């Protein structure tokens, strides 16, 4: 089957996208509404925020002992909050950043979106230091998914056994099959749009694939010429109306926060339903410590700063979801007599095995105008090179996706080639002729890649994170191989010249899941080995990362952890 013939496009027809409004999978949407009403709790007019729902939000007193306090309202934390609130738990979810209103707080502008990123100080180090901030770190309710591109692929079944099968990475204490039902559930709730997916565990998506713009068209044309299989999607962007969320308008500013409510983030996919079921979102509050009762060994709650005052929130369970830098940092900053090296750090594992994906971007120059900014950056992808190829000198692989940088990000790419002055301006004036693809390379987990505490302190008086990263040989092989494939695709599509800029994307690991406390911080159900009522439900628990964007897996794993928590508590 030729994907170019079955998919939308090569030439995009936005009207085709609009037409699908009337034949979206209503049955799927109805089933979603029964378990997560978020999309129907958003306003059905011009505004994007249900202010009434927020005003009416239940507010707990710090003296209340809630069933669960959650630290962080991104992919992991907000999903858990919604699931626990639905199960009747009293939940307070605390976030260091704002409770965003897309109408007022977000703009269609690159430089004006700086406040979406976590820009508190951090120190980066190692042989290959990884820039943070805009690259991979979110702030406020919705977390990094507010500014992620929107790609929502699943991991492959092989990702859960890379050590036993390939002799690299780590085996998870759970299987792909353990996550599959949660993948399906979350794909319905986001919802994800894309062509039928042939890689990993083949599956379908609730929304049909979007039409593609110039950049996607280039990818399709080049891949077809190279015999490389590709698909449109998978993106967590509505294609057709979903609840009160409108269809995508193809404005290209996905990475600046979606003002349309078309691109999924927990702010609109899980927080509204959590509020409707009694959860409290406590924004602008920085958690600074986790309290553990020395006598019982159980967590009793968290301490946080808000408006210049310190408060405590007591809880029966504490769930951490601050992502791969802040979760380890909070554990390390929560040292006590019982845990002198940091909470849950008896075996020196907190902060280790942190991973980024190598994300080289290759750009191709075309005679025609591509104008890649005129569509969502996430359009087309290929997982043909995802799995280990026994004929290659490296293990595991990479995926290829359209990325479509806006001018400031594109200038970084051009300046990264060494161009400055007149040379830089000349390249930049040529912006409309360039097409850009990005790869995600499966960098391997290594003990030395880790978060520790720096000498430097932030404005809360807490030591900031020191993040050290060094690539291994396998990582470097993957970067080269991915670059070659992208150069091949662009050249086959007609590019006269290609240039590559090497960067990194995403974060996972840092408090990984394992079978026992000698190899990980949490067990299969995301419960820490050291403190029975302390869980970690964000991306830091992932033992490997595949070459898939991690958001969907973080949400699916959090939904699973929440379900297990509810069942365990009920059976006690």
């Amino acid at each position, binding site marked *: 089957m030729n994907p170019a013939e079955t998919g939308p496009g090569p030439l995009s027809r936005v009207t085709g996208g609009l037409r699908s409004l009337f034949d979206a999978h209503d049955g799927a949407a109805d089933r979603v509404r029964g378990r997560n009403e978020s999309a129907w709790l958003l306003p059905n007019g011009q505004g994007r925020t249900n202010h009434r729902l927020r005003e009416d939000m239940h507010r707990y007193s710090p003296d209340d002992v809630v069933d669960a306090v959650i630290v962080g309202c991104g992919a992991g934390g907000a999903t858990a909050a919604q699931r626990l609130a639905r199960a009747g738990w009293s939940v307070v979810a605390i976030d260091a950043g704002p409770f965003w209103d897309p109408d007022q707080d*977000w703009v269609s502008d690159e430089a004006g979106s700086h406040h979406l990123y976590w820009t508190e100080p951090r120190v980066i180090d190692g042989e290959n230091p990884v820039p943070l901030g805009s690259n991979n770190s979110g702030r406020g309710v919705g977390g990094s998914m507010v500014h992620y591109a929107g790609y929502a692929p699943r991991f492959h079944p092989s990702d859960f056994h890379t050590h036993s099968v390939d002799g690299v990475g780590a085996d998870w204490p759970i299987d792909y099959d353990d996550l599959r039902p949660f993948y399906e559930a979350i794909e319905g709730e986001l919802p994800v749009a894309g062509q039928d997916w042939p890689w990993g565990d083949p599956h379908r998506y609730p929304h049909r694939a979007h039409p593609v713009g110039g950049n996607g068209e280039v990818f399709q044309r080049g891949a077809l010429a190279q015999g490389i299989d590709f698909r449109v999607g998978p993106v967590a962007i509505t294609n057709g109306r979903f609840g009160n969320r409108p269809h995508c308008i193809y404005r290209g500013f996905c990475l600046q926060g979606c003002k349309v409510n078309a691109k999924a983030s927990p702010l609109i996919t899980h927080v509204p339903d959590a509020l409707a079921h009694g959860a409290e979102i406590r924004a602008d509050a920085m958690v600074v410590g986790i309290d553990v009762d020395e006598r019982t060994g159980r967590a009793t709650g968290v301490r946080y700063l808000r408006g210049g005052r310190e408060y405590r929130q007591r809880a029966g369970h504490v769930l951490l979801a601050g992502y791969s830098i802040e979760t380890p940092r909070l554990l390390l900053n929560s040292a006590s007599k019982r845990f002198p090296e940091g909470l849950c750090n008896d075996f020196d594992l907190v902060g280790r095995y942190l991973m980024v994906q190598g994300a080289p971007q290759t750009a191709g120059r075309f005679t025609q105008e591509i104008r890649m900014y005129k569509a969502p950056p996430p359009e087309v992808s290929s997982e043909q090179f995802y799995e280990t190829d026994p004929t290659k000198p490296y293990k595991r692989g990479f995926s290829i996706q359209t990325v479509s940088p806006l001018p400031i990000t594109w200038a970084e790419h051009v300046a990264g080639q060494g161009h400055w002055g007149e040379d830089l301006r000349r390249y930049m004036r040529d912006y409309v002729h360039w097409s850009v693809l990005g790869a995600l390379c499966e960098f391997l987990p290594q003990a030395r890649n880790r978060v520790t505490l720096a000498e430097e302190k932030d404005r809360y008086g807490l030591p900031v994170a020191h993040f050290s990263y060094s690539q291994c040989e396998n990582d470097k092989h993957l970067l080269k191989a991915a670059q070659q494939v992208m150069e091949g695709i662009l050249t086959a599509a007609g590019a006269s010249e290609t240039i590559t800029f090497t960067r990194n994307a995403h974060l996972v690991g840092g408090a990984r899941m394992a079978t026992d406390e000698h190899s990980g911080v949490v067990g299969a159900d995301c419960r820490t080995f050291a403190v029975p009522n302390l869980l970690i439900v964000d991306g830091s628990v992932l033992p490997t990362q595949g070459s898939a964007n991690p958001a969907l897996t973080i949400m699916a794993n959090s939904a699973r952890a929440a379900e297990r928590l509810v069942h365990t508590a009920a059976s006690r």
Partner: protein
Amino acid sequence: MVSDGPALAGTTPGGQPVRFPGFDVLAQVDHWDPVTAGVVLARLSLPSPLRFFTVAEEGIAGALLDHLLDQYEDPRVPVLQMIDVRLTEKQTDGWHYADLPEDGQAWRDSLRAIDDDARSRFDASFTECTGEQQKTLIQAVQDTEGKPWHGMRADRIWSLWTRYACTAFYAHPWAWNEIGFSGPAYPRGYKNPGIDAREPYEVRDHLPIDPTRETS
């Protein structure tokens, strides 16, 4: 409408709209949401007086940025002032290298360092050097790559300079006019994505010179 004044219509940095003649991203401002319009239009207002850079640093940074961005003619994107605001407000990217101080101090240290280079090489302060001499000194920093330069890794200073310079310059609607970028598109969105497809208000590239094939 803001864009009606003839002095503003289709302005490009340096005043030479070569490739997209007549293209004026600000002509679409009525179609932008008010919050976005406010953020973008604020960049056209009179820049605030410098607060971060000292007078000595102002001279060095101003010349350095002019060269990095090839900005020698008015109208100029006020990148020096835009960077000064960022550094005053400590609006960093959320990280710094372990072997460098935070961004503000790294700017001060590196400006002093290139001034030292000027004095030892040309026996003059950086601001007193000719434009060609200044460019030679800048090129030498880039050529030092990952090696130490006044106790700092030159490539990391290079990245600091170009990152701040490009972020300021390409945030400005005059730069968008120059490169044919249509800027904000909410709530309208785009109706004509695809190769060689344009919105009614977009202008075709009139001088499609392939930069990879041309050298100056």
